[in-house]
C-alpha cells in the first residue's frame, strides 16, 4: 500500500485478504528535509497514541531536499491505515509506503557492540562474532568493538549472546528498509 500526497483513495487498501491481526509494519516516509519535520512525525505518533518501535531518518536526495524516514510500528490493519493517512496529511510528507504490505522487503540494521573481558570470555566473543560476520572495528587487550549488519532479529540474537561475553554497551542505527524488485516507493 502506498499513499501519495493528494492522491489517496483510502479504504480501497483495506483489502479483505489482509488478516486482521496485530503485527509490526515497516513504513517508509518520504519528506521534505526541513527543520521540524521529524518533530511533526514523532509528535503525531505520541499525540495520537501510536507506538514507534524503531525510527531512522536520513537525507536521501540532496538536491531535492528529501529525507526518508523508516518507522516500525505495530497495529491491526485499520489502525495502520489510519496511521498512514495521518502521516500523509502532514504538509511536508510526499509519500507513505507500507513496505510490509508491498510484499517482501529487505530490512537491515547496523550495530556497534562493545565487549570487555579476558581469557575464555574474550575468545568466545571473537568466535561468535566470526559466526555472525561481525567485523572488529576496535580492539584493546581487554576489549573489542564489533560492527554487525543484519536484520533486527540477527542483531537481537548477537547482542543477547554477547551479554554472556562481557557486553559493555550497544549502539544500534535503527532500521533501513526497501522493497525487493525493480519498483521504488
Amino acid at each position: 500500500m502506498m499513499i501519495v500526497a493528494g492522491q489517496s483513495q483510502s479504504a480501497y487498501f483495506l483489502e479483505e485478504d489482509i488478516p486482521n491481526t496485530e503485527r509490526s509494519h515497516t513504513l517508509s516516509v518520504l519528506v521534505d528535509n526541513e527543520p521540524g519535520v521529524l518533530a511533526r512525525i514523532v509528535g503525531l505518533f505520541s499525540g495520537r497514541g501510536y507506538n514507534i518501535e524503531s525510527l531512522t531518518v536520513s537525507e536521501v536526495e540532496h538536491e531535492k531536499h528529501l529525507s526518508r524516514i523508516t518507522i516500525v510500528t505495530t497495529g491491526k490493519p485499520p489502525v495502520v491505515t489510519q496511521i498512514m493517512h495521518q502521516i500523509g496529511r502532514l504538509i511536508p510528507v510526499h509519500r507513505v509506503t507500507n513496505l510490509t504490505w508491498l510484499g517482501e522487503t529487505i530490512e537491515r540494521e547496523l550495530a556497534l557492540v562493545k565487549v570487555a573481558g579476558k581469557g575464555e570470555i574474550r575468545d568466545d566473543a571473537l568466535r561468535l562474532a566470526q559466526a555472525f560476520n561481525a567485523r572488529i572495528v576496535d580492539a584493546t587487550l581487554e576489549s573489542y568493538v564489533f560492527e554487525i549488519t543484519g536484520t533486527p532479529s540477527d542483531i537481537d540474537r548477537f547482542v543477547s549472546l554477547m551479554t554472556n561475553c562481557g557486553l559493555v554497551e550497544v549502539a544500534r542505527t535503527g532500521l533501513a528498509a526497501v522493497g525487493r524488485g525493480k519498483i521504488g516507493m
Partner: protein
Amino acid sequence: MTRQMTGAEMVIQALIDQGVDTIFGYPGGSVLPIYDEIFQQDKINHILVRHEQGAGHAAEGYARSTGKVGVALVTSGPGATNMVTPLADALLDSIPMVCITGQVPTHLIGTDAFQEADTVGITRPCTKHNFLVRTIESLPRILHEAFRIATTGRPGPVLIDIPKNIQFQTGTYENCKDKAPLTQYNPRREGDADAIRAAVNLMIAAKKPVLYTGGGVINSGRHATELLRDLVKLTGFPITSTLMGLGAYPASGPNWLGMLGMHGTYEANLAMHDCDVMVCVGARFDDRITGRIDAFSPNSKKIHIDIDPSSINKNVRVDIPIVGDVGSVLAEMIRLWKELSPQTDAAAHKNWWNQIASWRAKKCLRYKKSHDVIMPQYAIERLYAMTRGHDTYITTEVGQHQMWAAQFFGFDEPNRLMTSGGLGTMGYGLPAALGAQIAHPNSLVIDIAGDASAQMCIQELSTAVQYDAPIKIFILNNQYMGMVRQWQQLLHGNRLSHSYVEAMPDFVKLAEAYGGVGIRCEKPDELDDAITEMISVKKPVIFDCRVANLANCFPMIPSGKAHNEMLLGEDVSDEEIGNAIGAAGKVLV
C-alpha cells in the same frame, strides 16, 4: 512584478494581495514593525481585541460567516500562547485561519529571551501547518503558501512565526499567490468515478436511505449547499445533519429530520439506526454522533464523501469511500442520477417515510411549558420567532444553551451558525459574534450564551463597543453550568460539585459598565417585548434571560449507549436519569 520592501511591509502587502480586508489582533514588542505598517496604510482594517483568544475566535467567526479566511496577528510569548485555544478550536472544526505571530530575533531564539516561546513547537499539534520564517527571502512565499494551505483541502489554521529582525530586513517581494506552490501539498478534489457510480447504484436500490451531512458541506461552499438541496429533491431522501452542518439543508425543508447525535432528534437518530443505505456527506462520524460504535447503524451500507482520507474509516468502517470535495462529488452524483433516471422503490420509500412519521409523532423536543418561569427552550423558540425576517447570524457558547439553540433555532441557510463543535470551547461565542458582526455590519448577530460561558471572553464586549459592533449576547441564565450539572445528575448521584455559580455578576450593570445596554427578563409574558427591544437597540446588548435553573437538555443518548437507547425529555424520571449510564459509559465524555 517584484518590489523591494521590509518584511513588515511584505506581511501587509501579502494580506492585501490575498484580498484580506480585516484582521484581528493585539500588539506587543515583537510585532511592532508590522503594527507600524498597519498605521501607515488604510487598506486593511485592524480590529483591536482585548485578549488574544478573542482575536482568534473573532477570526473564526469572521471566517465561518463569510466563507473567507480569518486572519489574526499577535505578539510572541504570551500573545502566542493565548492563541493556542482558538487554533485548536479551528483545527477541530476545520476553519480556515491564518495567524501571524511575532518572534524574538533569530539570533536570540533558544536563549530564553524576553517573551520567547517555542511557538511552532507549541502550536504544531493544533495547526494544520506552521512556519518559522528563517530568512527574508522565504517570507513572501511562506505568506502566500499559508493562505493556500489554510483554505484548500480540509481547511484549517496555519501559523506563521516571524522573528522581529526579519520584519525589519529588506528583501524582494513578489505576489506569488498564483505561482508554483512552496510545498507539494495538493489535495485531490475529484472523487473516483467508479466509486461515485457504485454509490449512486447503491442509493438507487435503497429502501430505507438517509443522508447524514456535516460541516464539510459548508466548508465546500455555497455551491455545495445548492447541490445538496438538488440531490434531496432528486432522490426524495430524508436528511439529517450534525451540529456543524446545520443550515446546509433548510430546517424548514420537507425532508429535514432535525439534528442527529447525542442531543439530536428521535427521528434523526432512529433513521440512522434503521436505515439500509447511509450517505455521509462531509461529516466525520464523531463520537457525539455514533454513540456506541458497535451498535451504530448495524444494518446499513455506508457511503462516505470526505476530502480528508484520514476521516474515512477512522471511527466507523464504510463500504464506499469517496475521497473528494463535496461540491465536486455531489455534482457528479447528480449528473449520474439524472443520466440513469432510475426507478426507485416507491413502495419501500413510502413505508420508510411512514415509519419516520411515526417517530416524528413522538415530538421528542417537547418540554414542560410554564407561565411563571421562562423555560430555556421557550426562550430560544421566541428568539427564533422574533428574529425571522431579520438577516440573522447566530453564534453560541458551549453547554445546554448551545444544544437548545441547535434544536430550537431553525437554520435555513449555511454559514449562519457559528459554534464550537469539536473542541467545545466556552468563551468562543462572544468573540465569534464580534467577528461575524464586523464582517456583516448591518446584520443581526446574536451570541446565544450561558451564564458561565459568557464570562469567559466577556472583555470583548469592550471591543464591540469600540467598533460599533451591535452584537447581542443572549444569556440563558440558569445560574448553573447547566451541562455539567446535568452530567452530575446523570453520573454522579446529583452531587453538584462546583457547578453552581454563587457569585453571579449583575449582567445589566456589566453591559452598562462596558458602554453597552443591559436588558433583563424574568417572565415568559415579557419575553417578546424584551427581545424586540434588544433587536431595536443599535448597540451591543447583554440580555440576561432568567430561565428555569434545573432544566435538562433532551433528547439525550447517554454516553456508551446506542441510538435506540435514547432518553426522551418529558417521560424520564429523576431516578431513570440517575441510572441511565452504566459503569462503562461513565468513563466516556
